[in-house]
């Protein structure tokens, strides 16, 4: 795609959101493609959120949480991992292009990694040929 992609990012309050903050305060440069939504935990992200985001016009979706073992709620990200694994397999089965829905673990100390993740995800979404899969057609323009 030619234009800058718009990626909806669900960042967990305790790790990835703080990691994004660190990337900012450390003045690390990364693409401005994310629209960040802060959630209490990666397990808060219902797979329905992901589909809804695609339907409402997100070119990509990133869900990011704490590393396994570091969850603020002890085990939320373990459950999240199982949920995302099943949902991602199902989405790929029905032909969702690879690279549109991504997951990552970023801790609060990993500002550099956060920037790398954003770059990687942005490049992945740029390579997607058809971002209109699951885009809801409305009577008015989606823009």
């Amino acid at each position, binding site marked *: 795609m030619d234009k800058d992609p718009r990626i909806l990012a669900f960042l967990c309050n305790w790790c990835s959101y703080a990691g994004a903050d660190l990337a900012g305060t450390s003045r690390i440069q990364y693409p401005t493609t994310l629209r960040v939504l802060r959630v209490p935990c990666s397990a808060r992200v219902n797979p329905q959120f992901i589909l809804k985001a695609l339907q409402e016009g997100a070119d990509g979706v990133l869900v990011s949480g704490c590393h396994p073992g570091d969850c603020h709620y002890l085990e939320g990200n373990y459950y999240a991992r*199982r949920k995302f694994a099943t949902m991602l*397999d*199902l989405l790929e*089965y029905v032909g*969702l*292009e690879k690279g549109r829905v991504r997951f990552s673990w970023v801790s609060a100390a990993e500002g550099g990694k956060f920037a790398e*993740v954003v770059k*990687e995800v942005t490049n992945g979404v740029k390579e997607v040929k058809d971002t209109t899969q699951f885009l809801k*057609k409305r009577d008015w323009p989606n823009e």
Partner: protein
Amino acid sequence: MSSLTDAIREEAKKVLSEGKVDFVIGYGEGDNPMRTQPVFIDKVEDIDKLVWPSFGLINLANYLLRHRNTPHKIGIVAKGCDSRSIVALLKENQIDRDRLFIIGVNCPGMLSRQVAREKAGEIVAASSNGDKWSFETTEGTKEVSCFDLMPSNCAACRHHGPVIADVIVGDPVTEPEGDGYDDIREFEQKPAPERHNYLKQEMTNCIRCYACRQACPTCNCDECFVDITQPRWVDKGLEPTDLAIWQLIRTYHQAGRCVDCGACEEACPMGVKLLWLTRKMNLVVRERFGFEAGVDPEALPPLATYKKEDPQEFIL
């Protein structure tokens, strides 16, 4: 009448007359030879209404849900998949085991109206002669053998016998080799755009009547996500992405719960290939977490538990 019918009637009669149950849920004849309806027998005189059907792709465990809060003791006729559904319901505390008397049936497999419609066309009358069915269609009479009328889930079934039962009727069925998911694996090999087009094409047939949801014993939420208006997860209407997302989320909610009974697909008035999605979900759960719904009464549902070493190759 088949020997299974006789055996089911005999067992039902026994439990009813001994007063072990208040009523028995079983299969009854529908209004035509290709229809089966549930019957609720509470008197021994009515026992002849129980049959073992040919086109019996309904899941009787569904009817237990209406008795979640009643005091009745219930007898239920359960083929392999129905018994797995009962296990799934027990696991989710939907019903007490003490209240159930399960008449398990070693099921040789059912026939599907949907498949018959695909093979023969618009059917106006049907009759069986031995291992063949002859269908009178709008384009003349067609004969189809029973084997060709089996739906994909029965062909792939590896649990013909009941998982739990108080009494079992019928001869055990030899389970075929393999895990039965070859058709799904074959479909996975197709390129992604082709798979997506298939989804679009199948889902545009959906009319959102929710017959699939109503036919399914594990679709038992008090309020389904499509009916919720705040927040409104899926808009009303027949917009293609709404249709696809409704079916995808329904499938996702079946992860580790779907027993592959095929009741949803058989209930669909539009012939949408729903098992194409739910069977993939079953395969994912099986390959990722080594879990099969309704087989082990002790095992925790896969999305309600975790292992520290779960694979995470997809996570950056």
